[in-house]
């Protein structure tokens, strides 16, 4: 009895210890930075949030400010923290001119371009971007920032949940494509904004699709990984079967970050999609299909045999050989 208790206690201790070490390892991996550095970044950014946040506007630290202007320049600290740039200080991009108030005159012009910190990425992406419809038609106005609000943008792999990735990435496009005002800032003067619903009338259950796939699924070239080349509308994907099939292109697009977790839930193919969407033609079950096919085959064979027997019996009877 005593012995068993001791064993139980040791086992319990081991479990607790392993859980503690696991959570410690977890914290370390999410905080690649040391805590002191992280605290310093938060402190620095809190200085800006003292004015540039909804709280800041409610209780401004100074009275000599243009509050109407500030109202249009608010940022959500929580969203910023979870964004890809959550660990970047505001002043790294905005320059030291922003740290004093009143700010320097041409603060806007002083923002670092993406390439300053992401030389390799920008080099790769810029060639795709330059080939995109936006860059071709509005090279001067359209920049990386037109789509990526660096204060909130988060990369897909880190977001994880497909519906959140969809919401973020579609909001990017719809920000312009659903707003006459925003669209007109970039479009040629005489260009009217085509209504998104009208353009995609051929796509049934349009609202459902907007919630289940991203614009870029159809508007970028197929291939491994994501390309920034937004294609000309004549090259956009119109073939339903590119998604609604076993080899759904969504495997290499929206769901590519989740593929590693794929397990054959209930024997379904593309089961990585099942917790998030049911896609006719893509999420199907070879076992059920096989069972239906087998029953159909049995039925047909049964009917054929019966037919042959009937015909045979009829012939037999007609020949009068059957003993009464």
């Amino acid at each position: 009895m005593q012995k068993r208790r001791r064993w139980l206690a040791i086992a319990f201790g081991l479990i607790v210890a392993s859980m503690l070490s696991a959570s410690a390892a977890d914290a370390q991996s999410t905080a690649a930075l040391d805590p002191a550095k992280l605290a310093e970044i938060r402190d620095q950014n809190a200085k800006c949030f003292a004015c540039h946040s909804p709280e800041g506007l409610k209780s401004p630290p100074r009275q000599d400010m243009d509050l109407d202007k500030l109202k249009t320049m608010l940022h959500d600290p929580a969203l910023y923290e979870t964004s890809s740039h959550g660990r970047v200080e505001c002043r790294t991009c905005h320059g030291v001119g922003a740290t004093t108030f009143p700010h320097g005159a041409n603060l806007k012009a002083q923002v670092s371009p993406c390439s300053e910190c992401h030389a390799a990425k920008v080099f790769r992406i810029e060639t795709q971007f330059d080939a995109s419809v936006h860059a071709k038609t509005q090279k001067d106005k359209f920049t990386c920032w037109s789509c990526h609000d660096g204060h909130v943008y988060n990369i897909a792999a880190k977001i994880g949940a497909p519906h959140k990735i969809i919401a973020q990435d579609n909001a990017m496009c719809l920000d312009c494509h659903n707003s006459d005002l925003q669209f007109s800032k970039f479009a040629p003067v005489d260009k009217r904004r085509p209504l998104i619903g009208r353009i995609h009338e051929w796509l049934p259950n349009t609202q459902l699709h907007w919630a289940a796939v991203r614009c870029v699924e159809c508007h970028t070239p197929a291939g491994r990984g994501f390309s920034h080349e937004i294609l000309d509308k004549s090259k956009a994907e119109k073939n339903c079967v590119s998604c609604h099939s076993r080899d759904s292109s969504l495997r290499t697009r929206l769901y590519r970050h989740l593929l590693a977790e794929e397990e054959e839930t209930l024997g379904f193919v593309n089961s990585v999609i099942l917790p998030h969407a049911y896609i006719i033609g893509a999420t199907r079950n070879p076992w059920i299909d096989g069972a239906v096919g087998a029953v159909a085959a049995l039925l047909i064979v049964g009917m054929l045999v019966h037919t042959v027997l009937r015909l045979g019996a009829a012939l037999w009877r007609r020949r009068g050989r059957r003993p009464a």
Partner: protein
Amino acid sequence: MKTRIYLLPLWLRLWHWSNAVLIVILTVTGASLHFSDTHLTMVSFARAAQIHDIAGMTIVALYVFFLTANAVTGNWWQYIPKPPGIMARSLRVMRYYAFGIMRGERDPHEPTPDSNFNDMQASAYFAIMYLVMPVVMITGLIFLFPLTAPDRLFGLDGLFPVAVVHYMAGAAVVLFAILHVYLGTLGHTATSQYKTMITGWHEGDLPSGRTSSRRAR
């Protein structure tokens, strides 16, 4: 001697053939949707979705007509297997299909206006028309308005159970329909039951004057 009785009213025959055509359309387009990337695809996915939606809504409307007409005319009673002795009579029908028909025996059930189906038919039609078809139609209607499906269910997408039930119940209807077409050839002659469903007249072999075959046996 031969008797000739008017068995099937016009509305029933019209309903039956419209229903049959729609089931074929729904089967072909449904298969094209489900097996979108295989050789079973007979219609392009986009066209199949379009046709399937329209045919689906039509068959629902037709079903409402079927229910109403059945209620008004009292025809629904035909689908109710009547105890006692359902099992015994069904077994007799099965035995007839398996052996009796080979030996040229008489069908143990002779249709009459007040008892059109044998007990096996009554049970099967009852199950298909009043149990399986409603399931197909209700899941189909949810499918038609997928945003009405629950968001999530058991950790999977809410449309998942709807889709799987729709597919399996639809398959059951199709499998039944295949059998139904074959059983239709098991009348007095291979085509006699088809003729009845077209003209409404049944050529029977009851002794004249008799209108019901049930109690006699």
